[in-house]
């Protein structure tokens, strides 16, 4: 231990620290020792450290204010975790704790200069100053980010283990003070299942630090909870939000090996029992280390056995402040003066260099002191009931906002300090009644009433005669609020946004009422007329990790994935699918398809089995072309458009038997098309007899392509005549492949070559794949990946939906206008396409093939086609170097003015520079007549 003498007190009743378990840790580069049960801050205070951070804007030293989770001055970095709430987080052995926002150090801080120029940093300073010139924004950002707190995250860290859990429970009780504990017990006694959520590490709320009698009441309540197995207790957990239908979010920290766990609870009834939060007092110097709230003193003394100071001045306006005086006196702190707010007494200012040294009273008396305690009122954290629809109202007697009682659904109840004041017994009685009602309602019973819990009178103390901080996290002073009011920001919501008061890490829990009170003072309008700001979720900070949870991103692979991995397949992530992009040399793979034969794993291709007598009607409805006369044994290429005529998907559908069809979709469109078909069948034509069954992964799909395909197929296929006459282009057959029955094979030509696409029962996929490779060895067979297929299809001028089309491309702009059969009675998008054909073609973009004039040039996809004066005339949608032809090949969407064959267009490259390219006669560069694929 280094530094000042120990401030650890002798054993206190109810203390949380275990004196037999010292824990060594580091703070700001030095070694310290705390005790198990300490928070980081209590351990440091016990060691005589009382400055934990520098303030956000003026870089003022900050120490303990509330000694609770929301304490604005106690945010620290622990190891690689930034923004740790040091007054809440339990100390652990070996922690490396560092201050934040103290560049270059906690003791010497260059930004302290800001304190001197503070008048330039008043509210709105950033809004007004860093506006012009715009070109300096990046520079401003660099400078300002240096000044912003927030700790340091490591870019090396992997996503840690975060968890999610779903809970369905009758009653959730948020807060485990006396009322919350009683509510949980009473709800359980009605037969309800209960989830009790407490932000602190132990149950009890203020009973934990309120003397021997409270401790004995607490141990009774704890025993009652423990005796009821239907109560699940979560500590170090907080209800962060209440949403529709009582969907309640609970953040659990450090649980079961997870850093954080987000618990999604569907609750029958939510009982909000968050208690009260003590409100700071506004005066000059109210942020000096050594100025504390009465609850902070009582926590430090009673829970952590830490002496918060030696000479104290106490300003008290309530019983809790009086109790703090008693605590201080008991542990030997010299209480030099107690000022009673109820009698109108107050202080003027606190002074000190870097920490509290003296308190100046209204009469000018200066009292040297190292501890100033204030107990000037409470804030009811109405957050949860806000979210449930209640708009809190100002209670001038109690000088705090309280629930209005209106607007809450019957499934949300409030109890405890949130509602009103009372003795421990009264709070318990109220909690019990609320818990009973909650349990009854959750189980469908009417339930009884809940007694009133009156608010005790409390003086309305907000600000002394001097100005001080209203928001410690954001460094907003009461002067800023007055200035904002003068500038016309005279409503609570406007002041909040202009000054950023209540927008810092404490989120208004400490600041809201003082902000509104000062605004009331400045505007002369009553607090009840100004109203409070609305508390929105989350009530407590949630890390992005907790929201993300464990990464449950499913990946899909074909049965042949193992083979791909074993043969150099470079993985390509395509939606949820992982598939081989290439096996080392895509161009070579493509050439081999043109010259010999290749096979590609096309399992991700969407596949739907359609059965029933009305399938042709369905096909006629969803495809733009005609399907009535598709014979058994034939396949047809079809294009689907949405109702606005935009191309949605394409693929081939084959008629396997009289009433059985196999539809293929694009890999990415499988789910959409399935839903699309169901939509038509369920909502518009529920009388049609069609069954749609998704069979994408029931089959492994392999495309065999190349001039030697037939020869290969003859070696593996049994029972199907493969000659061109018997099994021609766009035909489908079912049969046995490599000994596997029930295979579907169809002749199509995406690559432009003679090609068979086979769909084999998935569990035999690898077997058939390997059988093909073995059988084709002497034919020069090679597996090819997605990249080679893209090259081949581009050489052939076959478009890919969503690559060569976009969200505005109607069928005609995809070169598919000829397929649109407007003489059909109806199909999806028909009216739109009919008008488009009549009125729209002259101006609609067209899909064309482009060949760069320079044979070595390949403009990147998305390069723009521009006119001589720089107007955009279109864009390159696909481009590759053609291994077959030795020059670049492109598809492009272009303005009709430059769509005529032979037009030379200018393509502007993304990196700068222009190239020229010629519009082609045909979309296909290779075999435009289709001789090869019909072979």
């Amino acid at each position, binding site marked *: 231990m280094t530094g000042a003498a120990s401030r650890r007190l002798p054993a206190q009743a109810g203390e949380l620290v275990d004196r037999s378990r010292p824990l060594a840790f580091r703070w700001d580069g030095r070694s310290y020792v705390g005790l198990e049960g300490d928070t980081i801050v209590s351990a440091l205070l016990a060691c005589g450290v009382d400055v934990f951070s520098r303030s956000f804007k003026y870089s003022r030293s900050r120490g303990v204010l509330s000694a609770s989770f929301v304490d604005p001055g106690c945010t620290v970095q622990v190891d690689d975790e930034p923004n740790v709430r040091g007054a809440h987080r339990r100390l652990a052995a070996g922690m490396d704790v560092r201050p934040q926002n103290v560049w270059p150090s906690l003791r010497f801080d260059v930004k302290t200069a800001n304190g001197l120029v503070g008048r330039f940093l008043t509210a709105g300073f950033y809004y007004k100053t860093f506006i012009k010139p715009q070109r300096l924004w990046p520079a401003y950002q660099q400078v300002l980010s240096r000044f912003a707190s927030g700790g340091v995250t490591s870019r090396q860290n992997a996503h840690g283990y975060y968890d999610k859990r779903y809970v369905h429970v009758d009653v959730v009780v948020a807060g485990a003070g006396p009322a919350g504990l009683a509510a949980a017990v009473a709800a359980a006694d009605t037969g309800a299942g209960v989830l009790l959520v407490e932000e602190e590490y132990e149950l009890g709320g203020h009973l934990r630090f309120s003397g021997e009698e409270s401790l004995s009441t607490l141990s009774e309540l704890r025993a009652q909870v423990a005796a009821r197995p239907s109560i699940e207790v979560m500590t170090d957990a907080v209800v962060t939000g209440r949403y529709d*239908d009582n969907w309640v979010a609970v953040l659990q920290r450090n649980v079961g090996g997870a850093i954080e766990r987000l618990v999604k609870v*569907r609750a029958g009834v939510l009982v909000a029992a968050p208690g009260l939060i003590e409100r700071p007092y506004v005066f000059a110097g109210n942020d000096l280390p050594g100025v504390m709230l009465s609850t902070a003193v009582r926590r430090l003394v009673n829970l952590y056995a830490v002496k918060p100071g030696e000479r104290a001045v106490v300003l008290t306006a309530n019983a809790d402040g009086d109790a703090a005086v008693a605590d201080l006196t008991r542990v030997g702190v010299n209480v030099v003066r107690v000022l009673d707010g109820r009698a109108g007494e107050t202080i003027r200012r606190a002074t000190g260099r870097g920490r509290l040294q003296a308190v100046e009273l209204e009469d000018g008396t200066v009292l040297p002191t190292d501890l100033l305690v204030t107990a000037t009122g409470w804030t009811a954290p109405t957050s949860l009931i806000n979210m449930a629809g209640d708009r809190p109202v100002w209670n001038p007697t109690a000088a705090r906002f309280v629930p209005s009682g209106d607007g809450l659904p019957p499934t949300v109840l409030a109890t405890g300090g949130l509602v009103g004041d009372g003795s421990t017994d009264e709070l318990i009685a109220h909690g019990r009644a609320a818990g009973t009602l909650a349990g009854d309602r959750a189980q469908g019973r009417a339930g009884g009433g809940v007694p009133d819990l009156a608010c005790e009178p409390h003086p309305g103390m907000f600000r002394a005669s001097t100005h001080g901080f209203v928001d410690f996290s954001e460094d907003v002073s009461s002067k800023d609020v007055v200035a904002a009011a003068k500038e016309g920001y005279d409503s609570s919501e406007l002041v909040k946004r202009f000054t950023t008061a209540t927008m810092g890490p404490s989120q208004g829990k400490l600041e809201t009422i003082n902000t509104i009170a000062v605004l009331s003072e400045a505007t002369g309008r009553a607090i009840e007329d100004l109203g409070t700001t609305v508390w929105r979720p989350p009530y407590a900070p949630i890390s992005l990790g907790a929201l993300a949870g464990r990464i449950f991103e499913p990946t899909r692979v074909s049965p042949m994935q193992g083979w791909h991995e074993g043969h150099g397949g470079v993985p390509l992530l395509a939606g949820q699918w992982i598939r081989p992009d290439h096996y080392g040399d895509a161009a070579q793979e493509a050439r081999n398809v043109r010259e010999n034969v290749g096979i590609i794993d096309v399992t991700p291709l969407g596949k739907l089995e359609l059965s029933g007598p009305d399938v042709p009607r369905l096909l006629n409805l969803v495809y733009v072309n005609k399907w009535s006369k598709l014979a058994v044994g034939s396949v047809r290429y079809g294009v689907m458009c949405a109702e606005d005529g935009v191309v949605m998907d394409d693929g081939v559908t084959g008629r396997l038997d009289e009433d059985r069809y196999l539809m293929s979709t694009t890999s990415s469109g499988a789910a959409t098309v399935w839903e699309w078909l169901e939509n038509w069948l369920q909502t518009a034509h529920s009388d049609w007899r069609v069954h749609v069954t998704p069979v994408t992964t029931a089959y492994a799909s392999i495309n065999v392509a190349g001039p030697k395909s037939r020869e290969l197929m003859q070696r593996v296929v049994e029972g199907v005549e493969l000659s061109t006459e018997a099994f021609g282009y766009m035909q489908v057959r079912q049969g046995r492949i490599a000994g596997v029955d029930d295979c579907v094979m169809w002749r199509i030509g995406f690559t432009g070559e003679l090609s068979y696409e086979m769909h084999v029962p998935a569990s035999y996929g690898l077997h058939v794949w390997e059988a093909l490779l073995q059988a084709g060895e002497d034919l020069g067979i090679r597996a090819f990946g997605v990249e080679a297929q893209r090259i081949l299809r581009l050489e052939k001028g076959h478009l890919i939906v969503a690559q060569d089309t976009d969200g505005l491309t109607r069928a005609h702009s995809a070169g598919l206008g000829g397929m649109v059969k407007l003489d059909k009675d109806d199909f999806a998008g028909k009216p739109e396409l009919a008008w488009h054909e009549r009125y729209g073609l002259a101006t609609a973009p067209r899909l064309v093939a482009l060949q760069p004039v320079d044979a070595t040039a390949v403009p990147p996809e998305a390069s723009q086609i521009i006119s001589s004066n720089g107007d955009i005339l279109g864009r390159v949608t696909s481009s590759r170097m053609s291994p077959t032809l030795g020059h670049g090949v492109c598809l492009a969407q272009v303005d009709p003015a430059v769509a005529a064959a032979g037009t030379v267009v200018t393509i502007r490259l993304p990196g700068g520079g222009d190239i020229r390219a010629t519009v082609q006669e045909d979309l296909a560069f290779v075999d435009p007549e289709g001789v090869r694929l019909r072979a």
Partner: protein
Amino acid sequence: MIRIPCPHCSARNSAEFRHVGEAAARPDPSTVTPEQWRVYLYERSNPAGWITETWFHTMGCRRFITVERHTVTNEIRSVRPAGSSGPEPAEALSGRADAGSPDAGGQA
């Protein structure tokens, strides 16, 4: 997150569904005017009040359902299979008002 009382699966989290949007009757394509078709495609009433809309139970029964929902309170007063007529009162389908087990169950 609201719960939708699916007529096939009972009350389920809305995250299981896809919100298709306000139910819009498809005009007869043989007689429709461009204006009517645009209304069908793009114009929605977006009321602060009762709306009849379609939901698709993507992660459940995969049925389209027609829901009458109040956009301000999220109260649901009727659900029925899309394409059918005659609203069924939501209460009859959602079971008791509390959460209990409907999310976990689904064998309504």
